[in-house]
């Protein structure tokens, strides 16, 4: 394997990691209810009492400022030319909506003139501001021109009804404003650079530092939660996988040695049946049988916390769960391994070896097995990736606090930072497994090395 090939593979791996992370980021943006504090989107807003719209919106604005969600989304943004011009005006927060719309609808010079007159008029008549502001804000939301024109006439009559002579320039500015539309150049899109201070950049840099955010449920770090759950899942997975590998290896060999015995036939039929039963039924039946024969899922050994890995692994739930995991993957592994062994028995080198006088046992171990193990590497990687779904079901059934339980809880609660973090972890795990498979395949099979 040339250095250039290895470097290329590493680069491809890094690129796919970055692409995965960006897609997960987009997914996080699309998730509902990610932009406000917890509970705000729910129908009964009991957490916030009978708060009115203004205080709710100020709460949301405060939350977004604290979590950095009010920053721009990405480095670039497609903005209309008119919107860009409107941003130059920099009105106050309360006036911003209607000033933006005024610029977009009627042009920058008239809108800025009206805004200046408005700002000069405001200190002189503080009491009359709020009905006018309300009507202006309502004006922003109207898109149908008929409704808009009638509202503009109402605003004009309201302005005319104002007593002071200082309202006269305001009325004139308003009438100039609504008289003419903005030029169509205002509606051409442009690309605007938003700067490095954007949500995507912060998310990516935090990710590179290993910080996945904090959970919205219990305010723990997402990485801590995932690490704690991963310990249980890895224990479950490794125990189950090793047991299954041993059983399927020997079972496959036995099937190939005795192809016509009834035991082989019965066991194969049993494995076919086991393969079609859904995973959670197997887990449930195992749990049911275990409880009915008098077992208990509470650990019988006294653990004082210092016994470490071995004691935590010896708890009945984890042992039972690993047994269940092995039952889930043994059928597929055994049947596929047996299939690849059988397909090798019709090869020419096998016939030559038998003709030379070797026993079937010897050819099985020396010739068939190495050739059959090669496709088993890909099979193994598929099984490990499919194991993620099986472990999820097993963890829910046996109430083990692993990654599967964490994923389900974060969907049901919902807890979006944990969900995004878990998706990233699972996708990265899958990328790593696939990459390792390619490496191992290339190392084991000399024919692959030249590619």
């Amino acid at each position, binding site marked *: 394997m040339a250095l250039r090939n290895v470097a290329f593979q590493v680069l491809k791996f890094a690129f796919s990691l970055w692409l995965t992370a960006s897609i997960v980021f987009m997914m996080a943006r699309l998730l509902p209810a990610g932009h406000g504090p917890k509970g705000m989107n729910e129908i009964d807003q009991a957490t916030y009492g009978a708060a009115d719209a203004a205080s709710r919106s100020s709460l949301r604005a405060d939350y977004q400022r604290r979590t950095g969600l009010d920053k721009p989304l990405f480095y670039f943004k497609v903005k209309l030319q008119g919107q860009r011009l409107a941003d130059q005006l920099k009105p106050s927060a309360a006036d911003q909506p209607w000033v933006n719309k005024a610029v977009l*609808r009627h042009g920058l010079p008239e809108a800025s003139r009206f805004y200046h007159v408005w700002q000069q008029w405001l200190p002189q008549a503080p009491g009359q501001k709020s009905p006018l502001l309300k009507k202006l804000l309502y004006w922003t939301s109207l898109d149908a021109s008929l409704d808009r024109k009638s509202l503009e006439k109402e605003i004009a009559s309201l302005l005319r009804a104002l007593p002071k002579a200082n309202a006269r320039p305001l009325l004139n500015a308003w009438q100039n404003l609504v008289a003419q539309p903005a030029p169509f150049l205002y*509606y051409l899109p442009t690309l605007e650079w938003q700067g490095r201070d954007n949500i995507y950049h912060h998310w990516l840099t935090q990710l590179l530092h290993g910080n996945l955010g904090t959970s919205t449920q219990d305010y723990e770090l997402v990485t801590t939660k995932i690490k704690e759950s991963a310990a249980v899942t890895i224990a479950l997975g490794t125990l189950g996988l090793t047991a299954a590998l041993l059983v399927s290896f020997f079972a496959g060999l036995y099937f190939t040695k005795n192809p016509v015995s009834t035991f082989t036939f019965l066991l194969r039929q049993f494995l076919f049946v086991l393969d*079609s039963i*859904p995973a959670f039924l197997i887990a449930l039946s195992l749990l049911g049988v275990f409880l009915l024969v008098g077992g208990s899922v509470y650990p019988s050994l006294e653990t004082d916390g210092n016994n470490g890995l071995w004691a935590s692994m010896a708890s009945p739930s984890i042992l039972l769960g690993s047994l269940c995991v092995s039952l889930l993957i043994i059928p597929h592994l055994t049947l596929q391994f047996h299939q690849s062994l059988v397909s090798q028995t019709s090869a020419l080198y096998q016939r030559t070896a038998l003709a030379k006088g070797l026993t079937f046992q010897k050819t099985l171990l020396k010739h068939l097995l190495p050739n059959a193990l090669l496709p088993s590497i890909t099979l193994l990687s598929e099984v490990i990736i499919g194991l993620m779904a099986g472990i999820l079901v097993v963890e829910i059934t046996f109430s083990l606090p692993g990654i599967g339980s964490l994923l*389900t809880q974060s969907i049901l609660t919902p807890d979006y930072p944990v*969900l995004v973090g878990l998706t990233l972890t699972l996708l990265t795990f899958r990328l790593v497994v696939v990459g390792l498979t390619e490496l191992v395949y290339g190392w084991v099979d000399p024919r692959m090395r030249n590619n």
Partner: protein
Amino acid sequence: MGRSKTNSPMSLAEKASLTWLLIFTVAALLSQILVLRGEQVVAIPEQAYLPPFTTFEHLLGTDGLGRDVLFYLFLSCRTAWLLAIPPLVLASLIGVGLGTIAAIAGNHGWRIPLVRFFALVLLLSVYGILYPVTHFWPVFAESALIRWIYYGSSFPLLYLLLTKEGFPANSGNRRYITLAVDDWLQKIINIWSALPKLLLLLLLTAFTPFSLGTLLGWICATYWVLPARIARANVLLLKKDSYYESALALGIPFYRVFTNYLLPSLKGPILTNFCFAASGLLGVGSTLAYLGIGIPADVPSWGKMLANARFSIEAWWLLAFPATFLLASIFSLQVLGNNITVQSRHKSVTK
């Protein structure tokens, strides 16, 4: 065509499977009618956990809330049927379509002259740039005429660009660009089959509120991959046959080529995949209900009853009967799938 050897009379297993699937479909239909009339399973807490075969009105017993198990399982047939058959039919249609297009076009089949390609890109960008102007500028915003011109002018322009041949004098040194449709479909399939289907479905259902309709949509979006792969592989094999070549040489229009030449060979693998995918989907749908995800709270399902059975193992009937119904449906579909495999392999051209 006489009866071939594989058209032997159906074995007992196949008859039982077909009977069960018929019962299953009829039950789903009847419960749909019942649901439309607003019937629900009645919960009588005083009669909770009645064992089966004791009273006549609760033949299979009652569950923790006093709901009749038989009626609940009957209504759950509708959920299971709705989550398995319609989305798979749609997914198979989409998958076969995409797979066939990718196999027929291949990596070199879709050649566009470079000039035309740039003209298309330019057209699309002009339409994209003018979109805000025609939809939001106050002068145009209300006008239906402008929208008609905007969308309507795209059709003749696209027609001109996509169908009209260029000047024959230029055809010698015209540059072409080939779009690798096959590669793109394979990449999309690779990305989409990255995660196990259960995990992918779990993540997708987090985006939308739980309802049967959205779950149907997400199942469709997850299960189009396998039919696409099968269709692509089979059409690639069939393209090499001489009868396909002769069909093209005779100038038979493509839709006839598809229905008379390609579809008969595609039917077998696609139907087999349908049966096995349906049996897997029954399992996955029940798993989602078991986890409590994707199905709204008032919809009955076998998985939900099994999830509640976990907490009261002594009530074995809450575990046994839904499991029996589920396993019966899964095994019937698998027996049917095996039968179709055997029959189609005998009739297939690409053995």
